[in-house]
Every structure is written in structure tokens, then in C-alpha cells.
């Protein structure tokens, strides 16, 4: 019970410390915002494609033209960034493009699919605005992708049909050629509809997360490390200012005092992590993944680890100044080595292996896994490693810390 009183007192002191608040809460948020935005181009990102209004000129009731307009340009996947406007003529389309009523135009020729059975397709006419090169390339990419697929499938089906027609089952009448051709045509059509264009994010390392997601996880991992020094300093400060001696003169056991100090650091780390994740999610739209329980468990386990490490550091050093040095240099080394500054994938193999000694590496990779979608089994190893570090540190710290 008294441990909780000590922990609550420590939490109260830290939450009211403006300098500490800036350092532990605001700084990681600011850095996440800066790094996430600045490196979004380098590391991929979640920025959306601009909305493109495409003027489509359909000059006859060609079946392929209808498929292209209805199943590709107007598909659900495209709705987010493509809006289709039907234009009566090419001349009108050019006029609308000039007046910026549309961003690009597609003129589908008469009998577009007329020679498709021969594996040939008439060329589409693409009308673009030189000032809107991005929109132009989007439309060009979609149309090229579609026409390439259509031609490939036409040629494929032609070859398949020819092979089929000369095959023994058809020649001996065991297979109905018409029925087989209809089935193949149906399957090809399904393939074509399914294989529409989609927008995918650039992967970082082996995983697909945005820069904002990566740096949110990285900053959380790094700034929670600072609890090691603040926790250690808090205990050393109690010893230096004689409040520890006073605590010992009360009917409170040594273990209760040390555990209370550990718990105070743990509380603050949990609060710091909670504020950070909520703020990055709601203010910066960082997606921490679908499984919030996994995020919470990793956050709690990591808070336990840093609180345990703070007890170990307090036991190993005597002066608060030394803790500051550890905070200034040691944590920066851990941050770099553990991937909080740059993605681990850019490091040589040796450094990637060395990163395993840093707790922030384990928590960072766990968060990235969670963001990408992962199982509890995958998280078992990092949780075990982090808990082991925390328990060993807390045990050594409790035994070795000199009260006077």
C-alpha cells in the first residue's frame, strides 16, 4: 500500500514538472510530426493521389468501352481519386480541358474492340493539360494498364482456343468446344475485372508502414527510454536530499520504498505512452494497427522494462549528474542502434544483430508488426525479452541500491 503512496507521489511530482512534461510528452510528438512529414517522400507515406476529373468520349456502344468506363474508371477502387464525366465529342473534351472543367480526357475510338480477336486494339486518344502532369500520368497509367491486360488476355485466349480446338477430347467429341470456350472466356473476364489498378504504399524494410507510423513507433520507443534516467535520478535525488532517510525512519520497509519508486516510473511511462499514442492517432492520424490490445500490452511491457532499468541505473551510479550523462549519450546510442533514428533495414547486418541488445529495437519492431497486422505468437519473443530485461534489472537494482 505504501508503495502505491510513494508511486502516486512521484507521479504527481513528475506530472507537475513543466520541463519534464515538455521533454517527455511534447518533444516526441513534435519530432514525430516533423520526421513523419519530412521523410514521407523518402520512406513512402499515406499521402493521397489528387482527385482527377476524367472526361470520357465514347463514340459508339462498344462492349469493351462500356467495361472500361463502368468497371474500371467508375470502380470503387478508383472512386477516391477518379471522377468520370461523359463528354459528347472530342472537340468538346478539348474545350472542357481548356476551361479546366476536366483534368484529362480519354477519347475511345469507334469499334474500339473491333480487331481484338486478332490481338489488336485501336489506340485511345489521351487529352492532357501540360500544367497537370500528375493527373495526366495517373490517367495514362490506368488506360495503358487496362489496354495491356485486354490485349494480353485476348492473345492468351486465342492461343488457348486454338490449342483446345486441335486437342483430342474436342476432336473425339468428349469435350464440348462451345461450352469450354464460354467457360474460358468467362474466367478471363473475371480476371480482367479483378485485376484493376490499386494504390499500394511503399514498404519500409520488409513491412508496409508509412513514415508517420514508423516515426510514431520510433519516438515512442526512444522517449520512453528517458524514463530510465528520470526514474534513476528520482531515487538518487531522494537519497541526496535526505527524504530517503526520512522515508526509512517511517515504518516502511526498504522493499516497499524501492518498489514504490519503480512503480512511480512505471506509472509515468504508461501515461506518457498513452498520451503519445492517443495524440498521434487523433491529431496526426497515425494508424497503430487493428489490434489495440496488442499495442497496449507492448506499451505496458515496455514501461515495465524502462522502470526496471531505472532501478538498475540507480543502483549502479551515485550521482544524479552521471544519470544525466547516461541520458544524454547512452539513450542516443540506444536510439540510433535500435532504429529510432533511421530504419534498421538501412544498417549493415552486424549492426542489425547488435540492435538486439536495445529494448527499443524490440518494442519498435513489435509496433511495426502490429501496425502491419500480426499474431500474438509473433509478439511472444519481444514480450519475453522485454519482460526478462525488466525483471533482471529490477531485481539487481533492488538488491544493490544503497539507501545511504
Amino acid at each position, binding site marked *: 500500500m505504501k508503495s502505491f*503512496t510513494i508511486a502516486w*507521489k512521484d507521479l504527481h*511530482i513528475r506530472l507537475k514538472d513543466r520541463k519534464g512534461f515538455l521533454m517527455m510528452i511534447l518533444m516526441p510528438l513534435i519530432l514525430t510530426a516533423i520526421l513523419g512529414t519530412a521523410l514521407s517522400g523518402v520512406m513512402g507515406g499515406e499521402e493521397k493521389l489528387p482527385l482527377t476529373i476524367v472526361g470520357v468520349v465514347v463514340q459508339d456502344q462498344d462492349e469493351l468501352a462500356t467495361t472500361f468506363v463502368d468497371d474500371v474508371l467508375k470502380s470503387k477502387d478508383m472512386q477516391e481519386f477518379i471522377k468520370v464525366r461523359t463528354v459528347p465529342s472530342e472537340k468538346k473534351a478539348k474545350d472542357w480541358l481548356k476551361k479546366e472543367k476536366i483534368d484529362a480526357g480519354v477519347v475511345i475510338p469507334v469499334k474500339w474492340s473491333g480487331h481484338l480477336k486478332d490481338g489488336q486494339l485501336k489506340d485511345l486518344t489521351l487529352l492532357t493539360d501540360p500544367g497537370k502532369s500528375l493527373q495526366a500520368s495517373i490517367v495514362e497509367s490506368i488506360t495503358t494498364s487496362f489496354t495491356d491486360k485486354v490485349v494480353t488476355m485476348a492473345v492468351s485466349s486465342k492461343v488457348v482456343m486454338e490449342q483446345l480446338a486441335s486437342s483430342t477430347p474436342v476432336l473425339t467429341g468428349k469435350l464440348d468446344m462451345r461450352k469450354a470456350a464460354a467457360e474460358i472466356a468467362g474466367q478471363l473476364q473475371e480476371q480482367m475485372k479483378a485485376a484493376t489498378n490499386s494504390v499500394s504504399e511503399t514498404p519500409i524494410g520488409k513491412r508496409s508502414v508509412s513514415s508517420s507510423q514508423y516515426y510514431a513507433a520510433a519516438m515512442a520507443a526512444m522517449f520512453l527510454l528517458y524514463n530510465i534516467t528520470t526514474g534513476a535520478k528520482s531515487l538518487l535525488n531522494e537519497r541526496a536530499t*535526505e527524504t530517503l*532517510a*526520512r*522515508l526509512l*525512519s517511517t*515504518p516502511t520497509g526498504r522493499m516497499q520504498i524501492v518498489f514504490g519508486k519503480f512503480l512511480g516510473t512505471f506509472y509515468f511511462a504508461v501515461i506518457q505512452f498513452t498520451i503519445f499514442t492517443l495524440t498521434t492517432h487523433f491529431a496526426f492520424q497515425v494508424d497503430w494497427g487493428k489490434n489495440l490490445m496488442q499495442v497496449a500490452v507492448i506499451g505496458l511491457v515496455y514501461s515495465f522494462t524502462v522502470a526496471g532499468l531505472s532501478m538498475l541505473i540507480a543502483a549502479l551510479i551515485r550521482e544524479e549528474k552521471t544519470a544525466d550523462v547516461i541520458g544524454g549519450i547512452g539513450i542516443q546510442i540506444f536510439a540510433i542502434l535500435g532504429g529510432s533514428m533511421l530504419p534498421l533495414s538501412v544498417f549493415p547486418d552486424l549492426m542489425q544483430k547488435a540492435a538486439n541488445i536495445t529494448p527499443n529495437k524490440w518494442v519498435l519492431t513489435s509496433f511495426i508488426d502490429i501496425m502491419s497486422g500480426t499474431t500474438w505468437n509473433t509478439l511472444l519473443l519481444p514480450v519475453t525479452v522485454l519482460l526478462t530485461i525488466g525483471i533482471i534489472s529490477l531485481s539487481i537494482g533492488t538488491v544493490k541500491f544503497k539507501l545511504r
Partner: protein
Amino acid sequence: MVKRITFSVQKGESFGLLGPNGAGKSTTISMICGLLPFDAGEIEVAGKSVKKDPMSTKKKIGVVPQDIALYPTMSAKDNLVFWGKMYGLTSAQANKRAAEVLEYVGLKDRAKEKIETFSGGMKRRINIGAALMHKPELLIMDEPTVGIDPQSRNHILETVKKLNQEGMTVIYTSHYMEEVEYLCERIGIVDHGQMIALGTKQELCNRLAGGTVISLQLNEIESEFITFVKELSFVEQVVSKDNTIEIFVTHTNLAIGEIVGKAVTSGLQVQAVHVQEPNLESLFLQLTGRSLRD
């Protein structure tokens, strides 16, 4: 290190431990409070052994440490509530008691202000208040007036006096003789880790051979002059340091005339003469050859 220190304090008594810095007062207190181990002897508080049952004895003791052992960024009230809880009070009990203690130490109006905004004297008062939260049977105060203004010092002395009059047992350590003389019924004088005198103020002063001390400040001290003074029949002891001679005498008026006259005829310049009535300071001087403030 302390050795062979033996004393007992009765319930409701006010006991003073007097001695210069480094004499062993704080060490003695730390052992009573269970903060320092001791390798021989026994300490009991209210019949319980400090060594065998430290938690039980700690509940009965309120300690006022020499340093301000408070949390500077917390308010006066929050500090008191915290220390109350550490002595086992519930949240409600601690809050109620904190209000009473704040009134007692005269800082009720500053309850919500942070300790770091307080003057040295005010901090000392809260430092005492924290030790009173659980209404201890024994209040141990380790030099509680170090480095504060006279007004706060008086307030603290009056508070301690009042607490003792209300029945609280007090052990008060100081190197200020006048504080111990004012507050304590019995006094133990400690030096180099040993108890060199113990008794009431009167008993201690009675031990002085040559109760009055004549302090003579000269331009220089000659060994011939000191020999002359020592051989005078009414002189019990002579202690010299720098250009000052402290002379313990039995007949004050006779001694002043004789000693000052000899100094003048010896060609020495008498720069100051001070006569001090028998007190603990002179007893300490006689016992150790040093001043309490050395």
C-alpha cells in the same frame, strides 16, 4: 562512530544532546531511529527493541532531520499528507491531521503553496510538522534551527516547548547551548562519540570547578604570563587559544584585578575582558579544552 553512550529518557521528559559538529549526536539519533545499525549494546523505545522490532519503534518516533527532508515542488499540505500516510494514516486521517499541524506550526494560510517558495524558517516548520503527523510518543529533533532567522528560531523553540508541555517526550540535539538550556530538563554532552557529561543543568554546572570564566584577549600571549596565572590560588584551570586566555576562577573580583594588573605590568595590551557566569559552554570548555562552536 559512537561508543559507550548510555542514557535514558523518561516519558514526557525533554532531553538535550549537546555537542560540537561531528561529536556523534546525529549518529546517535540515527541509531535510535533505526537508520544506522549498531554492533553492540541495546536501544529501546517504549520498551521495544530497535534492533528486534524496528517497525514497532518507528511508529512511536517522529524524526525531524537536520536537513529539510521535504519535496520542494509539492505543497506544504501535500507534503504533510504524504508523510502522514507513510506513518500509516489513512487518506482522510492524513488530511485532517495536516490541517491541525499546519495550524500548529502557524502556516495554515500557506497550505497550498509549494515548499520551494517558502523561506528557510517556514521550511523548517513544515519539516517539524511532518514529524508530528502521526502524533508520535517520542519526537527526535536533530539541530532543527540550523541556518534560520531569529524569528523562526523562536517560533520553533516555542513549538517544541509547547509539545513537551503537552506530554510529548523530546530528544533535542544542538550545538547551541542556549537552546538546550531553554528546552531541556536533562542534558547529555557528547564529544568524539562519547558521552562526557550527563545530568540536569544545575548538576552539570555544579561540576564546574571554578564556576566563573574570565576571558582575556591580549595582543600576544607569553608563557611566563600563563605560568603566573596558573599559580594563582583562586585559578582552577587555564585554556589558551590564539590570543585569548580562558581562566576558570573561584573569586571573580579578586582574579580580575590580579590578572589584568599582571598583564599590564608585563607590557601586554589588554584588548578585552569578558566575565562569563557558569554555564554548559564553560563546562564543555573545561572538559574538552574546546568551545562548542569549534
